[in-house]
């Protein structure tokens, strides 16, 4: 239904405005890679969250011999302590995901803030913040963790902080670029001319435009955070009192699972980590593709119009 107004014009039929959530959901539905990624990720998260209730056996319950082979009751066999692997994987995924999400939260908060401040204010502030970003970019993660572990002891908290402060740099850069471009939009300039303060402009005009990209970037960061945690745990720098997927693999290694031929103690946790990272990457990439204006590819239409035979009668020709 369109409304005709006398002066000065018609209102076009109201199209539903695509809300932020709408765009994200739309992308997930439309792109196969996003759908797959979202599905796998949801499954893993579901299993991990519900582990206390749906894990088949107890986490510390010995139900068989060390490195027991896979059987009907234990599809993935037993670890070095005779604990069911499936249970172990579920509980391990919990910790891996907790660290992944927590570290990402830290990284997103730091990176997002720095990105917004640098992009919005520009000039010297931008310069200083970007130099700081560069410094953090070159810090190697493993040596840093070793140092932290040596001084303060390895704990989940420390791992989260270490990973967090190493990952924020890419988020900061992406957000900064986006903020810089939004800042040049005419309606932002208008708000400044109206006398709006910085806080207002950032909260009302800049952040809403930046949020979708931030979300996409966050998902990608989760993938990296999980990988980092797994690697650190595998190297023995993780929290010894918590079992993450990386720890499961490390344990198996330490207890000579390979020479015992117990592939089920090493491969499944590795595969699960890979799946987790893969699903985050698929989802994150698809979202970023859909939301990052710079990545949009313009398609040149090839000539190939169709011809229809003459229809109707001619009006008086000129």
């Amino acid at each position, binding site marked *: 239904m*369109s409304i*005709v*107004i*006398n*002066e*000065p*014009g*018609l209102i076009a039929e109201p199209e539903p405005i695509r809300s932020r959530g709408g765009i994200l959901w739309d992308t997930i539905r439309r792109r196969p890679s996003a759908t797959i990624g979202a599905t796998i990720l949801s499954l893993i998260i579901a299993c991990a969250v519900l582990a206390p209730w749906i894990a088949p056996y107890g986490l510390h319950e010995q139900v068989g011999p060390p490195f027991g082979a896979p059987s009907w009751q234990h599809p993935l066999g037993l670890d070095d302590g005779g604990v069911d692997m499936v249970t172990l994987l579920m509980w391990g995924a919990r910790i891996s995901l907790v660290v992944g999400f927590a570290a990402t939260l830290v990284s997103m908060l730091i990176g997002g803030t720095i990105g917004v401040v640098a992009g919005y204010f520009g000039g010297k502030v931008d310069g200083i913040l970007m130099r700081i970003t560069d410094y953090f970019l070159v810090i190697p993660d493993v040596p840093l963790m070793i140092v932290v572990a040596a001084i303060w002891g390895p704990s989940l908290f420390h791992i989260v902080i270490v990973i967090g402060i190493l990952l924020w740099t890419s988020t900061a850069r992406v957000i900064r670029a986006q903020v810089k471009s939004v800042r040049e939009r005419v309606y932002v300039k208008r708000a400044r001319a109206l006398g709006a303060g910085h806080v207002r402009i950032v909260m009302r005009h800049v952040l809403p435009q930046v949020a979708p990209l931030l979300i996409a970037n966050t998902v990608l960061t989760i993938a990296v955070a999980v990988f980092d945690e797994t690697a650190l745990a595998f190297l023995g720098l993780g929290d010894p009192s918590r079992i993450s997927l990386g720890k499961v693999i490390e344990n198996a290694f330490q207890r000579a699972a390979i020479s015992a031929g117990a592939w089920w103690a090493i491969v499944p946790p590795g595969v699960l980590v890979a799946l987790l990272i893969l699903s985050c990457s698929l989802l994150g990439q698809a979202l970023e593709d859909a939301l990052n204006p710079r990545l949009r590819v313009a398609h040149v*239409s*090839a*000539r*190939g*119009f*169709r*011809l*229809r*035979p*003459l*229809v*109707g009668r*001619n*009006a*008086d*020709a*000129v």
Partner: protein
Amino acid sequence: MSALLETEDLQVWFDLPRGGTLHAVQGVSLGLERGERLGLVGESGCGKTTTALALMGLLPASATVSGRVLLNGIDILRGAEETMRPHRWVDLSMVFQGAMNAFNPVKTVGSQIVEVLELHHRAAGRAARVRTGELLAAVGIPDDRAGRYPHEFSGGMRQRAAIAMALACNPSVLIADEPTTALDVMVQAQILELLDALCRDFGLALLLVTHDLPIVAQLCDRAAVMYAGELVEHGSVDTLFHAPRHPYTRLLFAATPDLHGDGLPASIPGAPPRLDRQNEGCPFRPRCDRAFARCVDERPLLRTVAPEHGAACHLNDVAAEVAH
């Protein structure tokens, strides 16, 4: 003798991404004589650029075209790409909207013109470079500039280069789509002067597609006014200004400010109809100041109201009836 370029009942539909079609051009018939300058005038969305692209056969795959495009009496639209291709750039050439910004930034301007010459087998190597020099000279660009990159050219010079590129194969018809829109008024004057000279010196026929009525009034002999995909009036520019026979033409002139004179221009209330649905009656009716009962359900046809003057408005029939 038939006109150099003619269209008969040209229609273009576009498939819309979410289904349905947009009827962008709804039966356009116009004619262009050798050496003539015709202005195709209208506002955004009226279908003038689509018409121009249809003449060149440059519509995308989502387009469906019907009607005839006659070049020297022969229908070149008949075989779609196959029959249009041989004439493209060779007989019928175009300076696109924003052409001045469409140069390849990493190649010199001269080399891009040479490329066109070689693609159409007009010349190659040294001969092509010589010809390029001639073309650039014809548009007022000094010889030494051929080896420069597009970013070293000003906007006006890039537009001249785009015109030179369009003239590479010596066409008989040049279509210029908004050639001066992004240019300053003095540069615009230079470009219009150039187009005028080219038409005179090379016997070019010019189809000037634009929303800017005054430049049509200045450069063209005749004009055709489009609205909502249709041709609503055509005739000499003098007649269209002094004795228009379609309300849109009259109101469009009235809405254009003039340098001298009294009073303020008046806007036309409302907005053009949507072209993705069937419309009843005259498309201009909601905005017309002289609409009457017949305009509601009956679509006016383009009729000759005087020699070389046609308009699509029921008011002309009324006048004719009254005269009887």
